[in-house]
């Protein structure tokens, strides 16, 4: 486990924080809505009522002066109802009304007032509450206050508001806690992957990331990483095998080469024997150089060299190759036949394409028996790709060995005695990949008895007929 992986810096936690922010914004918006739908509406109603009452009293004052106003206030205050009244002198001394004191001295004409109050009702109970209304100076100084007791509704909306704030705080706290928990869960999975990567770096290529079987994104990632490691492990094994094989393939001719030269030097001078030694040494040197050339060529085809691609008349090249090899096949009592469709074109490098098919033909001729048959068939498939199959009726390759022979330097034990560096099919496969196609092996023409022969199938993207 890596302590440096702080939970607070993880993506999951940041997402949770963002989510908490969203919750907060939502609650504030909800609060606003509830506020306007309850308190706001209540206030607006109260204001309207108080304003109308204030205006009515103002009219009464205008018509009957302070006496009439006082009478009206006394009458109205005596009524049961939500409205509260106060009439005061210009200095604030209360003349009559529901309170002994003005909650607020008005500066001039009518202004809005919102206040908490405490009073004793008719039965002697103390009442606390909030009221809202209008207060102002009338003509010649008296002060009139008309307010509406907001009563229970103010309490209810106040509770709703505080409940919402509580919920909001809980929501934010839960989001953060959930985020921390999620981050902790995710970081455990990430650390498992990181541990695998570190083990691989430390040299254990067989280490694999744990897959929980939950089909989540971490499983997807772990499966992909494991597949990549499988491929890497395979490639490492192949290159190790290739290293051994190339060492073997080069050491044998080099040893014979050295042996010949040493023997020629040790033995008493003899022109004929010396020349023969030189001739053999030259052959061995050529065989080493051929192997090197094949390795270099394969590296260039597999590497990032840019090849000059052009439109290639595959039909013409295939027919010419069959024509080229046919006499050689006949010379060793094999039959070579071509069945190539008209108008097959590919986009590629003609030299490499020619060499790839020639490798397949030479392989087929090499691994068939006397009186064997080799066929080159090229067709345009229904999916628009070109399929070039070089099939023989030789011993074939067991299905379980077929993938392996496409690896570099692999020659099956049965083929160890025949010449070649085991690079032929690798080159064909590499050329196929370079042309965005593929090479696969299947049963061939079917031979005598158990033998099924071998079919090497090159599938390449076709180019449209001009």
């Amino acid at each position: 486990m890596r302590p440096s992986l702080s939970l607070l810096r993880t993506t999951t936690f940041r997402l949770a924080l963002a989510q908490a922010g969203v919750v907060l914004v939502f609650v504030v918006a909800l609060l606003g809505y509830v506020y306007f739908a309850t308190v706001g509406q209540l206030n607006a109603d109260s204001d309207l009522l108080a304003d109308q009452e204030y205006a009515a009293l103002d009219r009464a004052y205008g018509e009957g002066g302070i006496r009439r106003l006082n009478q009206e206030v006394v009458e109205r205050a005596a009524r049961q109802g939500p409205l509260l009244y106060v009439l005061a002198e210009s200095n604030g001394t209360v003349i009559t009304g529901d309170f002994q004191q003005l909650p607020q001295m008005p500066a001039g004409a009518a202004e809005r007032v919102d206040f908490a109050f405490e009073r004793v009702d008719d039965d002697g109970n103390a009442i606390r509450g909030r009221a809202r209304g209008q207060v102002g100076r009338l003509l010649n100084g008296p002060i009139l206050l008309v307010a509406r007791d907001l009563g229970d509704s103010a309490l209810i909306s106040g509770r709703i508001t505080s409940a919402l704030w509580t919920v909001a705080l809980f929501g934010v706290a839960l989001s953060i806690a959930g985020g921390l928990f999620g981050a902790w869960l995710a970081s455990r999975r990430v650390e498992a992957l990181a541990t695998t990567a570190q083990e691989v770096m430390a040299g254990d290529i067989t280490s694999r990331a744990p897959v929980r079987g939950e089909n989540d994104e971490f499983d997807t990632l772990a499966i992909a990483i494991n597949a990549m490691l499988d491929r890497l492990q395979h490639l490492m094994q192949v290159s190790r095998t290739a290293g051994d094989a190339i060492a073997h393939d080069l050491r044998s001719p080099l040893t014979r080469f050295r042996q010949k030269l040493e023997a020629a030097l040790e033995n008493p001078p003899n022109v004929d024997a010396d020349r023969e030694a030189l001739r053999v040494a030259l052959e061995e040197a050529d065989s080493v150089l051929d192997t090197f050339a094949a390795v270099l060529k394969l590296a260039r085809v597999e590497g990032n060299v840019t090849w000059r691609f052009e439109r290639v008349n595959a039909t013409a090249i295939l027919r010419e190759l069959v024509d080229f090899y046919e006499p050689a096949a006949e010379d060793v009592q094999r039959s070579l036949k071509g069945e190539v469709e008209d108008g097959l074109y590919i986009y590629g490098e003609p030299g490499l394409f020619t060499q790839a098919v020639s490798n397949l033909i030479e392989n087929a001729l090499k691994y068939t028996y006397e009186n064997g048959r080799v066929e080159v068939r090229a067709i345009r498939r229904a999916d628009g790709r070109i399929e070039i199959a070089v099939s023989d009726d030789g011993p074939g390759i067991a299905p379980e060995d077929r993938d392996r022979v496409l690896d570099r330097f692999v020659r099956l034990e049965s083929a160890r005695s025949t010449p070649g560096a085991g690079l032929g099919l690798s080159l064909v496969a590499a050329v196929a990949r370079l042309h965005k196609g593929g090479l696969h092996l299947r049963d061939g023409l079917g031979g005598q008895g158990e033998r099924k022969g071998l079919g090497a199938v090159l599938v390449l993207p076709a180019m449209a007929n001009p």
Partner: protein
Amino acid sequence: MRVLLVEDDAEMAASLKASLSADDHEVEVAGDGELGHSMASGGGYDVIVLDRMLPKKLGVSVVRELRDQGVSTPVLILSALHDEDHRIEGLNAGANDYLGKPFSTRELLARVRALWNGRDREPQTKLAVGDLEMDLLARTVRRGGKKLDLQPREFRLLEYLMRHSGQTVTRKMLLENVWDYHFDPQTNVIDVHISRLRSKIDRDFAQSLLHTVRGSGYRLEA
């Protein structure tokens, strides 16, 4: 003939010079591209053998500049990498032939001779070697007046041999020039083609024209 060898590897140059001299050529050696270019510009050589990777100036640049200057001496490029793209680049620059390392000395000698014989040749419509005659327009071959029936491929093979009659022609040269193949077949396929051709042009006649040159290739000679 006079051969200019431009090669920076001193041992390689000495060994090639010895081989070319033994084949009756007069050889001068330049150790880098600039020197090679200035020597070649002066003219007086029949064939130039040019390494591809040279200090100071690359072989391909040397050929291109010589051709721009109007020097038409046949050029053979030697390259460590026998690859299609390098070969095409060399030939496009104006080289007449291209040989990948490693090569056999015999291969090099055969190609140098072929270059010399191939230059400044008038377009011909008829070829003849002894009593073997080829009509390039009518696409017919006769020997001693008797018409021979050749496949198109055999015709092209014979045409190449007749154009280079009297010289040794290697299997590689045949592969490259008759089939335009630039890889080494692992089988004796060229020998089989030659033996089929031989059976058509030589079998019924007392004198053999198509000879095998042991270790090198073939020679058509009366």
